[in-house]
């Protein structure tokens, strides 16, 4: 849907200071009909890339190619994109409904249709009860929901969200992820940034990973996990401090005293199982070891 080709972005914080390279030759594609997670630590260049896609800032070099399905003119393209910035600040004296109307009117949505959309989405975002209240009375999570609601007000086919899950409590995050999945199921393309790998791994089919302004990976989550798969198995066993296992393994308690984890190769899986049973150890679980995105990208251990 959108392709970034060799994007570079330089910033000069002050006249005599050095040039800061925020993006270095970044190329990737937002694929139609997929949920794409845009990953990277704080300062990796995610928001800068999004601002370039949205034409808030211009790249120092490189091209952005928008699919003809989005349109040819800038106005056509942007009428099919919904964008939610990170932690936006809305007009505090307007009420929530005013703000949604404002945004939708700019996109030329007829009032009747807008009412239908609000009636559909507002309860899903659990913001319907507060739409007639002044925005200055909203909590951080409510502001995020209101922003998301106005992002969907013109029924865009591509939704770009900058850190949509930040500042939300666990329940709020779960609800927001459910909405993202629902939007995707209705045929939309979603591109969202996050620095929380778990969220992205949970709902995305595609990922783009940036580190210090450079592209590290772009492609499917499944392919990446498959490429980094581990043939080992992990046993979780009740810790009784009475074990003397002969099967080659590595053990760890992962910070808990009541359980212990044994990692063995696939070949030794059955031997280990037999040995644990013979030692009368209480097996809680056994599962193949699956590396997480966090472990793949940052080498972090559980």
């Amino acid at each position, binding site marked *: 849907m959108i392709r970034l080709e060799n994007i570079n972005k330089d910033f000069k914080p002050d006249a005599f200071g050095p040039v800061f390279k925020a993006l270095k030759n970044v190329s990737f594609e937002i694929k139609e009909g997929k949920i794409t997670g845009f990953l990277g630590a704080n300062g990796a260049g995610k928001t800068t890339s999004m601002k370039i896609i949205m034409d808030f800032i211009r790249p120092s070099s490189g091209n952005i190619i928008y699919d003809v399905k989005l349109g040819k003119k800038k106005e056509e393209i942007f009428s099919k994109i919904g*964008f*939610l910035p990170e932690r936006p600040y809305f007009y505090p004296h307007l009420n929530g409904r005013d703000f949604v109307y*404002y945004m939708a009117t700019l*996109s030329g949505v007829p009032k009747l249709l807008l009412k239908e959309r609000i009636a559909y989405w507002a309860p899903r975002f659990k913001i319907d009860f507060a739409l007639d209240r002044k925005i200055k009375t909203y909590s951080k999570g409510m502001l995020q929901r209101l922003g998301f609601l106005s992002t969907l007000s013109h029924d865009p086919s591509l939704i770009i969200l900058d850190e949509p899950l930040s500042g939300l409590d666990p329940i709020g995050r779960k609800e927001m992820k459910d909405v993202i999945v629902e939007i995707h199921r209705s045929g939309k393309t979603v591109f969202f940034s996050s620095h929380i790998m778990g969220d992205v791994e949970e709902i995305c089919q595609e990922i783009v990973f940036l580190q210090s302004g450079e592209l590290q990976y772009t492609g499917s989550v499944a392919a990446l996990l498959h490429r980094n798969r581990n043939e080992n198995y992990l046993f979780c066993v009740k810790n009784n401090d009475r074990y003397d296992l002969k099967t080659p393994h590595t053990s760890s308690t992962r910070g808990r005293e009541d359980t212990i984890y044994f990692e063995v190769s696939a070949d030794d899986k059955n031997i280990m199982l037999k040995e644990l049973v013979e030692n009368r150890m209480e097996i809680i679980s056994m599962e193949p070891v699956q590396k997480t995105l966090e472990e793949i990208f940052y080498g972090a251990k559980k």
Partner: protein
Amino acid sequence: MSTIFTVAYYTFKELLKSRVLMNAFFMGCFLIALTYIASEFTFGVPQRIAIDFGLGILTLSSVGMALFFGVELLSKEIETRTIYMIISRPVERYKVLLGKYLGFLSILFLNLIILASMSLITFKVLKGDITNMILWNIIYIFIEALLVLLLVVLFSLNTNNTVSVISVIVLYVTGHAMDPNTLKFFVEGRPAFEKLINFYHFVLPGFYKLNIKDFVLYQENLSSEYLISTLGYGFLYSLFLITLTAVIFERKDLN
């Protein structure tokens, strides 16, 4: 056009609900009280005091509003990322800018109408005669506030709010002090100074042109040519500032 009016409408609504017009109400009450007290101390010319205070407070309120609220018109939206929500829609940046101006000027106009009405009523109660010159002065106060607004928005796109406000105050004060008639004595025999003054008049706003209060107070008339040409100057200068700001806003990286 619909984009401009949509932005203008919601800008107006937000400002109206923020009770910025309380400014007009309090200023109006202050004006009436001050006029009453001052007229008690004058002999024979309470009307002059009334219109002097009225026009003074009108200027203070309009220019103050344009300066201190106007500086945040765009800069706050950029700083707080609200502008991203707007320009991510199928709208052109210059239309957003024009809409913001229109919305803010509507509030400024409302403020002017409220205060001018209170001022003129007080003046009339004190048996003053409302002349065309008073109305021209009120129009000029609006143009003065318009220029201040356009200048402060232009500055706020390029520097921080404090520097913007100070720069515009400096321009406002020098713009009033640069009256060629009062400077004539100093300019004579100083060609470099004269060139500097000419350059200033060519580029920077001549607020002194809009100051006709002395003519109002002493009930003197100005030629219609002067009044209309000054009005034209105000509009052309505004157009120049709007164009310049629109070009900068269009090209600006909204970080």
